[in-house]
């Protein structure tokens, strides 16, 4: 018990919160970027443009089936050899965005496929162009249908930011490691605290997605 009280000194907690802030920062930027890019890729894969859709489909499938850690390594250690040297933060966000965009592209595409084709026909019959129908009628319904899946993908993203500790991004897990590296008695208190922090964020999001899903249904 003594360990816990000592481990949770204000200095340590503040240090953890700084790490949490980096985690949140990386997550929010990656979520926004991957939602936009993923939606575009998903739609492009769906609309069947000659060659382009097939290429996008293949690349998306490839990225989805690689471990995220490998992509993080590639952006951080690999890219400098190609003449572009990203910082730790940028390399992490880049890797997360590449990986999550592919995941979201697949979710969005399956959402579009789940929308009744009559919706498209109805929109076209009412004088909308194909692109208008896609943007105003099909896409919103597809997103509505896939909200639980999208949110759970974002929860994965938040959890996966911890992988960036391997390239020493100063995020939550990394800061916890620094603290318990100084004193082994702090190991359990630190793991309990960061598990709690991740849990609160992720669980809150999953509750939110359930509420959203009920409201929109």
């Amino acid at each position, binding site marked *: 018990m003594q360990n816990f009280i000592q481990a949770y000194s204000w200095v340590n907690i503040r240090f953890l919160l700084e790490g949490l802030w980096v985690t949140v920062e990386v997550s929010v930027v990656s979520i926004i970027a991957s939602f936009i890019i993923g939606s575009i890729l998903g739609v492009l894969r769906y609309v069947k443009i000659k060659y382009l859709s097939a290429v996008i489909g293949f690349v998306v499938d490839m990225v989805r089936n690689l471990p995220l850690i*490998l992509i993080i390594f590639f952006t951080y250690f690999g890219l400098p050899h190609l003449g572009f040297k990203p910082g730790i933060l940028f390399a992490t966000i880049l890797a997360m965005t590449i990986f999550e965009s592919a995941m979201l592209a697949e979710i969005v595409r399956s959402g579009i496929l789940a929308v009744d084709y009559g919706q498209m026909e109805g929109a076209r019959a009412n004088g909308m162009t194909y692109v208008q129908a896609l943007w105003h009628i099909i896409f919103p319904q597809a997103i509505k249908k896939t909200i639980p899946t999208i949110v759970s993908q974002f929860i994965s993203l938040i959890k996966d930011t911890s992988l960036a500790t391997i390239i020493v991004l100063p995020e939550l897990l990394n800061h916890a490691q620094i603290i318990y590296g100084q004193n082994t008695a702090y190991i359990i208190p630190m793991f309990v605290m960061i598990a709690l922090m991740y849990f609160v964020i992720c669980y809150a999001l999953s509750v939110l997605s359930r509420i959203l899903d009920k409201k929109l249904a």
Partner: protein
Amino acid sequence: MIYIVTHYWSELVQGIGYTLLSSVIALVFSTIIGTMFAIFEVLPNKAMRVIGRVYIEIFRNIPLLVIAMFFYVIIPLYVAKIDGFTAGTIGLTIYTSSFIAETVRAGIQSVDPGQMEGARANGMTYWQAMSKIVLPQAFKIIIPPLGNQFINLVKNSSVLAFVAGFDLMYQANSIASLSLDTINSYMVVGVFYLVITLPLSYYMRHLEKRLAN
């Protein structure tokens, strides 16, 4: 790229072996544990339902790496000397079991409740009905999601690289630092991962489509 493959063949094969071994062990045990907690969640007993729910929610909402690191650091310190591979696989099993529990629960609930009632009316006990009637039907439905979990396991087993688990990702780093050819080392390892995961993922998509029709 060819140079990396021919030169570091033994490391790559060892890496693939450990990755697959860890994934298979974790799949077997997390299916057992996951099924157990899924059954907890559909039991008539409220206390058991709460236990099932709490287990699933806790381990679904904590990063795999945090769980794996926890076992890697804690077990040798307080319990027994174990290597990184074991600690990582334990973490992988516990993390995945919460996702499998959720899948199995959905499977059980998608089986018509009439099946359970019918079995009970024919004199089976609850456990007989669950294990002989409901679960086999549930597992038939959830084969594709379970397959997708296995693909996730293969990818997620890359956390073993953090705990010196000698998996494919760990080998990627050592090959990259030995050969000084970072890009090609990671590319080769990426291809090795894709050789396992891509065919599986196409097969699961095919299976899903067939089951849907």
